[in-house]
């Protein structure tokens, strides 16, 4: 059976490599041909090479006040703050909700009601309460990154092996030790999975927030590129956003794998 499912449409490594390379080349070739043919003006669709040049240029000479790295650094600072707050508040809250039924009953309806508000819809209040410097975007990132932290810590704590809880209780563990020494370690895989979702949503929310309210950062670079009708700047920014988002996810995936391996899964 295993052999049968394998042979179904299976490719040799060489065929796979050739097709992948062809797909890769086709993507850039189509882009290049459309851009270079003159059907679309280069202002709206620059060639891939022009985008790479622009990207390199942005790392050297500042655009709207900062170079690309400086924009990324200020974005990343906001992201780290918002994400850190979401983790620091969300995980303890989720664990407590998993342990105390009463807290669960009170928080869950509020949480479900607020969850349907898109993080981006917090932008007007974020700007009104905390301004457009660092506080406003941080609130938006927080609202994006917070729910997965709470939900996954809660699920981890709720579905912990009952035997462990009983054992700890028999040995006389109080609520504090129960949460920190039984529920938290048992929830780690669920929490780490939540962190990946949370970081992804937080990074997206950051981009959204900076598009609307910010005076520096990678989203601000995009908006200014848009205002200057410079597609190559916008595309450079998009590439930078994709790279950083990819790096954040890769880092968390590495941590996830390491934890799984240590637990012998």
């Amino acid at each position, binding site marked *: 059976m295993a052999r049968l499912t394998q042979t179904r449409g299976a490719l040799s490594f060489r065929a796979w490599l050739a097709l992948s390379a062809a797909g890769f080349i086709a993507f850039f070739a189509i882009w290049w041909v459309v851009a270079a043919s003159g059907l679309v003006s280069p202002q709206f669709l620059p060639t891939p090479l022009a985008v790479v040049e622009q990207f390199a240029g942005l790392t050297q000479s500042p655009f709207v006040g900062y170079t690309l790295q400086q924009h990324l650094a200020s974005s990343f600072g906001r992201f780290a703050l918002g994400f850190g707050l979401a983790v620091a508040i969300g995980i303890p809250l989720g664990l407590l909700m998993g342990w105390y039924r009463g807290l669960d009953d009170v928080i869950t309806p509020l949480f479900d009601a607020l969850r*349907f508000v898109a993080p981006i819809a917090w932008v007007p209040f974020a700007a009104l309460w905390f301004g457009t410097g660092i506080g406003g975007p941080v609130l938006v990132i927080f609202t994006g990154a917070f729910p997965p932290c709470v939900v996954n810590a809660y699920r981890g704590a709720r579905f912990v092996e009952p035997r462990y809880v009983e054992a700890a209780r028999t040995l006389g563990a109080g609520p504090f030790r129960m949460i920190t020494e039984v529920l938290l370690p048992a929830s780690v895989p669920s929490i780490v999975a939540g962190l990946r979702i949370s970081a992804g949503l937080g990074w*997206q929310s950051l981009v959204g927030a900076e598009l609307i309210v910010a005076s520096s950062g990678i989203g601000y670079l995009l908006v200014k590129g848009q205002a200057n009708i410079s*597609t190559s700047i916008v595309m450079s920014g998009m590439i930078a956003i994709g790279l950083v988002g990819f790096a954040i996810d890769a880092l968390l995936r590495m941590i996830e794998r390491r934890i799984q391996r240590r637990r012998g899964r």
Partner: protein
Amino acid sequence: MRKPSRRRSLWIGVATFAVVVAAWYALTTLTNTISPGRFPAPSEVWDALKQIAVTGYADARLAGHVLHSVKLVLLGFAAAALVGVPLGLAMGASRRVEAFVNPAFLLIRPIPPLAWIPLAIVWLGLGDAAKVLIIWFAAFVPAVINSYSGVRAIEPHLVEAARMLGVPRLAYVREVLVPGAMPMIFTGLRLSLQACWTTLVAGELIGAIAGLGHVLYQASLDIFPAMIVVGMASVAVTAAVMTVVLGYVERRAMPWRV
């Protein structure tokens, strides 16, 4: 055992909301602890709701804004499903298609949908076309990935049986591939609907002529906190309603799973 505890949860939920509203009233109208410029009082929110529902705000009534936003989401969503689901099915069914399409897909996948907004505005301006393009991007990637995983999750026995019985290609797609992948496809669509909605609100906040995001934008320009609350609540309620409706469609499309 189950029923009373459920009922208890419901009552606690209702009580919680009552306490929150009471605290809101006490902090704003009664004691003025929170100034009206920071967060509105319940009565102000009610007035703002009446204003936008009856006389209109930001060039249209509430129903008009909601309909405009929902129409754009459904358009972009349908267009993405129309292209994304067949592509995902093809990638799942054929390793050749997968190997060919995957590189381009891996390149665009890490870019969040919101980051396409400026590009869409440069290409298509502030009108509806740009919004539909953004929503298309938001829904396309999840549609492809989930249709693809849906095909891969089909029981191998089914595929082998169909092959052994010599089922013709078209019938194979209609009777095995699509129904087998359907559960995953719907999960993907439901998840991406949320993403679409968020993306649209962001797009409308950045530049639009109508829609709920435009209401939020106008309200923050006018420093009108009550209208911001109305806008946020409308965004949340519309999202909730769309999710419920899609759940209903899902049950109707897959009667065998109920």
